């Protein structure tokens, strides 16, 4: 892979030029579909874009010292890693480079959650600290399942390249793994049954409580990019392999939208669970799926 195509992927598709409008579109689809399910009309299509521009134009608190510099840095790190994760998704058929490296992708996936935890603690607001503690407890519980599910898919095929995984036909074993990943997505995206860290009406906005203006805009954008990356990961694992790049891109976008709709429907239909129920859900109910998936993956590997 030469440098031009690598840059094109990182900056155009599925990188920034695609990912930023897609992030806004996904945020809109989420809000709009929740509104429609509640019998409302919902926000106009450009709403997330207007919110972003408005937040950019607001003033920010003067922050001093190391804590201030850190608070300004966390949203940027989260934004960068979420954008990197989207850029790494092997949507188009290609070869070489970092493209589709599963370990790097998982690390970039995990960084925004780490940044949220750190941001809540460095804001020194009591609500931020509670939100961060909840986010930490949540990420410990869903990440076991999430990582085991992805590992089971990787272990059954002897490879850590997402591209090679996506190229193989969908097996029942992989479907089990994908199911476990989809169960983890609401917690990863802070959606309703598991929207504990930023629980409004309870702890203001959790880790984001002290953020304002452009910094908040960066958080919103990072959240949107997380949407694109998370749905994109599932879409690349489900999508059948196509030779034509435009068909691959089209199927990728359509599948991502379908997953966004599914997650929004779940979010609109459920209420927020308490932290102990959430942790118990992941450790007791969902872990079985993941353990089943990885044990059968290891079994398949040694039998062959």
């Amino acid at each position, binding site marked *: 892979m030469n440098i031009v195509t690598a840059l094109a992927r990182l900056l155009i598709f599925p990188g920034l030029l695609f990912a930023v409008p897609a992030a806004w579109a996904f945020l809109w689809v989420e809000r709009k579909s929740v509104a429609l399910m509640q019998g409302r009309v*919902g*926000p106009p299509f450009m709403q997330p874009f*207007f919110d972003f*521009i408005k937040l950019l134009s607001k003033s920010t608190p003067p*922050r001093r010292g190391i804590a201030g510099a850190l608070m300004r840095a966390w949203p940027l790190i989260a934004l960068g890693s979420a954008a990197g994760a989207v850029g790494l998704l092997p949507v188009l058929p290609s070869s070489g480079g970092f493209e589709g490296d599963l370990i790097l992708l998982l690390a970039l996936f995990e960084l925004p959650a780490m940044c949220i935890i750190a941001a809540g603690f460095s804001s020194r607001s009591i609500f931020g600290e509670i939100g961060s503690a909840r986010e930490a407890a949540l990420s410990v519980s869903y990440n076991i399942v999430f990582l085991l599910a992805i590992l089971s898919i990787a272990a059954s095929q002897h490879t850590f390249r997402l591209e090679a995984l996506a190229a193989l036909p969908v097996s029942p074993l992989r479907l089990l793994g994908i199911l476990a990943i989809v169960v983890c997505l609401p917690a990863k995206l802070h959606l309703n049954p598991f929207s504990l860290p930023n629980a409004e009406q309870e702890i203001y906005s959790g880790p984001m409580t002290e953020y304002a*203006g452009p910094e908040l805009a960066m958080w919103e954008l990072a959240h949107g990019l997380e949407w694109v990356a998370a749905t994109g990961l599932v879409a690349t694992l489900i999508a059948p392999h196509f030779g034509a790049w435009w068909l691959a891109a089209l199927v990728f976008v359509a599948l991502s939208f379908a997953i966004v709709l599914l997650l929004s429907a779940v979010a609109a239909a459920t209420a927020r669970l308490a932290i102990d129920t959430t942790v118990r859900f992941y450790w007791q109910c969902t872990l079985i799926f993941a353990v089943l998936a990885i044990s059968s993956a290891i079994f398949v590997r040694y039998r062959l």
Partner: protein
Amino acid sequence: MKLWSRLVCYARRRSPWLFHMNSGSCNGCDIELVAALTPRYDAEQLGVRLEGSPRHADILCITGPVTKNAVGAIKTVYGQVYGPKAVIAIGSCPATTNVFIDSRTLDGPLQKHIPVDVFVPGCPPRPDAIIKGVAKAAEILAERGSNSPVATVAIATPAGEEQP
């Protein structure tokens, strides 16, 4: 540059985020404000979002006749909303202290303490009146630019920042 400022004006008009604060209200106006967000009135069509933190908000919605206990909180929260910002006084209480006038537990009306941009009178006002008030405040925000009226007292937060 001109295009950017026009875009900013337009975005501010289309995305007012509210922070709701009760300063000793009887809950009548609070219920009507929440009703404005429900399916029947659906203020989200205008981009309205009820925010949990005053840091995120553009418009401060205050209900109630401003009790003596609430004055400090109102000034703190007003300082925590970053500019450009607007204040809506919802109901007759914050505008005039209503039937509670001359009560010894009150220190109203609201305008004594912070600059108010829009008054929505009524006891309680109807949700459509509140939505109209929010739309008016959003227009004021768009015209105002970055020069918000300044609160008289500077307030410090736990993180040690001085508030505007």
